């Protein structure tokens, strides 16, 4: 019955890709993988450039280990709904899932992700050459670890629940040709950034300064938080009091408003795809968002700005702080083939495969990958991205179960600031007050 149901269910999924490979392990790793030969792992991945690159290297895994992998690929916001249903079952269908960073809080809190300690302790499973210290710190802190500082960050009480895979940070992409033409320097701090953003429309009529996300809801909130961390602000202080309405918060809101006002036409409805498209089509001179978009700018079939794009670090405010986000992979507590899933997870995030995936267009999770000469030759911006990752801020937004509600509130209120002229201080005071009520109800002030 169950198998039957699974079949029907997977048939209904639009993009289900099955990889079947040769069921012979190669000599080198036979002992490790032999017990699991012939196992079929079901994994849930998002439709995302990184995971499209992963699909290119996956057949290699089956060839090496004899473990088959069935991939269920979904749009990344849909993935969350499906996983929520799957993870509450007694026996789940997924052996390995990719999760969006803000799902970490919910899954760990509901005890739905395996603590990875027991696998890394198991000498039969853990690869001694894995070199975990090479994994990018900011990503591991943001996506992998929970239970330490503030509950969602690393710390003395924290432990590992996932490994970053398809993670992202923010960089500033700019039009080299336009900057050179007008003798503009690449902005390194926020004052310069805002000045250049508003200078461009005057120098280049019809071109916006910087394309940014700004659509009501999650996008506007994301854009605001992108500026909040470098400008020195936080959403909560260490005792969960909302401090989003601090002067730093107001400065971030004003920065966003300046950027959108001087940005391309219709910018207030932009999501990340529209903002990237505006930059690709040459209607804006700068774009500051995830590194995942870079490959698209260099793709001649989509982009009119190939070869004209320069990349720089996310400008500094009172501190450096680029975003951390994207995806991690973890093993559901109700998975049926946990050990084999761990082997796949370890294989995918190993040095060799991280590089192979990066060469196919994915986002590296390791410092060593960014330093690789071959990768830098193929994607010249890799060195800048590696540098940006040193400043990746794992705490640029809180990852707590109540975040969904607060995030939506920040997003709609910011949208009102951008489109209806609501005063930023007043707007953020409102957000802080409502956030306090939400946090209070969720019990964050129990100990005060």
């Amino acid at each position, binding site marked *: 019955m169950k198998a039957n149901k699974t079949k029907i269910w997977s048939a209904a999924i639009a993009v289900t890709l099955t990889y079947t490979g040769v069921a012979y392990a190669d000599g080198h790793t036979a002992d490790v993988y032999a017990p699991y030969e012939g196992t079929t792992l079901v994994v849930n991945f998002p439709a995302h450039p990184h995971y499209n690159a992963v699909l290119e290297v996956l057949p290699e895994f089956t060839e090496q280990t004899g473990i088959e992998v069935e991939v269920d690929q979904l749009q990344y916001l849909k993935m969350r709904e499906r996983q929520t249903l799957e993870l*509450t079952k007694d026996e789940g269908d997924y052996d390995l899932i990719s999760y969006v960073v803000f799902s970490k809080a919910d899954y760990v809190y509901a005890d739905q992700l395996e603590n990875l300690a027991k696998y890394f302790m198991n000498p039969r499973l853990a690869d001694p050459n894995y070199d975990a210290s090479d994994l990018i710190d900011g990503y591991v802190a943001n996506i992998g670890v929970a239970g330490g500082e503030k509950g969602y960050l690393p710390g003395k009480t924290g432990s590992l629940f996932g490994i970053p895979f398809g993670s992202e940070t923010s960089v500033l992409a700019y039009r080299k040709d336009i900057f050179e033409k007008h003798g503009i320097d690449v902005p390194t701090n926020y004052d310069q950034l805002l000045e250049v953003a508003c200078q461009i429309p005057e120098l280049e009529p019809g071109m916006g300064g910087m394309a940014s996300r700004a659509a009501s*809801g999650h996008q506007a909130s994301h854009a605001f938080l992108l500026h909040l961390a470098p400008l020195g602000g936080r959403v909560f202080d260490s005792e969960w009091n909302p401090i989003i309405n601090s002067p730093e918060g107001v400065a971030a809101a004003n920065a966003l408003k300046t950027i959108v006002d001087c940005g391309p*036409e219709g910018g207030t409805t932009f999501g990340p795809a529209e903002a990237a498209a505006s930059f690709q089509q040459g209607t804006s001179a700068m774009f500051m968002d995830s590194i995942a978009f870079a490959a698209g700018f260099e793709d001649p079939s989509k982009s009119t700005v190939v070869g004209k794009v320069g990349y720089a670090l996310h400008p500094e405010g009172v501190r450096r702080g680029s975003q951390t986000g994207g995806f991690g992979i973890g093993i559901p507590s109700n998975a049926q083939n946990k050990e084999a899933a761990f082997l796949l997870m370890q294989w995918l995030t190993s040095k060799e495969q991280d590089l192979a995936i990066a060469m196919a267009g994915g986002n590296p999770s390791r410092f060593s990958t960014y330093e690789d000469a071959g990768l830098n030759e193929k994607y010249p911006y890799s060195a800048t991205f590696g540098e940006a990752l040193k400043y990746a801020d794992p705490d640029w937004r809180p990852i707590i179960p109540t975040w*969904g509600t607060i*995030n939506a509130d920040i997003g709609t209120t910011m949208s*009102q600031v*951008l489109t209806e002229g609501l005063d930023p201080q007043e707007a953020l005071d409102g957000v802080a007050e409502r956030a306090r009520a939400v946090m209070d109800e969720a019990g964050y002030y129990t100990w005060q």
Partner: protein
Amino acid sequence: MSIASTNRMTPYLFLAPAGLVLAFALFYPICYMIYASFLDWNPSQRIGEAEFVGLRNYFKLFSDDAFRESMGVTLKFAAVVVTIEMFLGVGLALLLDRNIRGMSVLRTLFILPMMIAPIVVGLMWRYMYHPTVGIFNKTLKSWGFDGIPWLSDGSWAFASVVIADVWQWTPFIFILSLAALQSLPASAIEASRIDGASGWQQILYIKLPLMLPVLIVTLLLRLIDSFKVLEVILVMTNGGPGLSTEILSLRINRTASEFRELGEAAAMSNLLLIVLLILTFTMFIYNKAQDARAARLRAVEEEV
């Protein structure tokens, strides 16, 4: 058991299967939803693990500004959309209620918008409203006017979703009104013509009153539907800018999937259901009152 009592039972026996289907297909989900609205229920929990919180979800909704605003937007949207659609739909029907060559082709063309999937309608309009490459702003600019912030300004965004909905659903009212018009008794219309009624008088005193029962049902159907629009607005604006186009069904969707508050979402759905029930009952009562009045008038006439 006597034969008489068995006979009395027979109708119920025949009704039982339908009753069972009704109980499972209708009452069970509704009761489930009502029960869920009393829970603090997170999608990561099973319903049995959720905490019972009584009426807390409802109290929370009434003190929630965003919910009240969204309710306001929904009422405004429904009222505006249905009014415009009724005028246009009935107007078109009156204009086209005649023998034109190729009428059946025209009629099919008119109802095309209704047949398009809502997601596609949303996408189509979103691209047409696009600030730089959309057809509206391109045309305006080529005529030398400034572009209009179709989806990026609160009031324009509301107008934009209204326009899209009117475009899609006016045909619904149009075909129903046309059907009603064509089934009107020719004798009444002929009699009025012989009595010398002008075209306007015919419409006002003969056609519209005779069409009224159909129009009321049409209105009701559209009204109920307009309270539940989701996909078109979801695709076009996702409720923005701010909360200017966040109608209730969109808020319910977000509450369940984004805020992960299934109990609150259920409470909202219940409130929406109650609003719709009140509307429907008002309509029915109005209808009944009208019928009763007509019957009384007829009785009086007959006595005379």
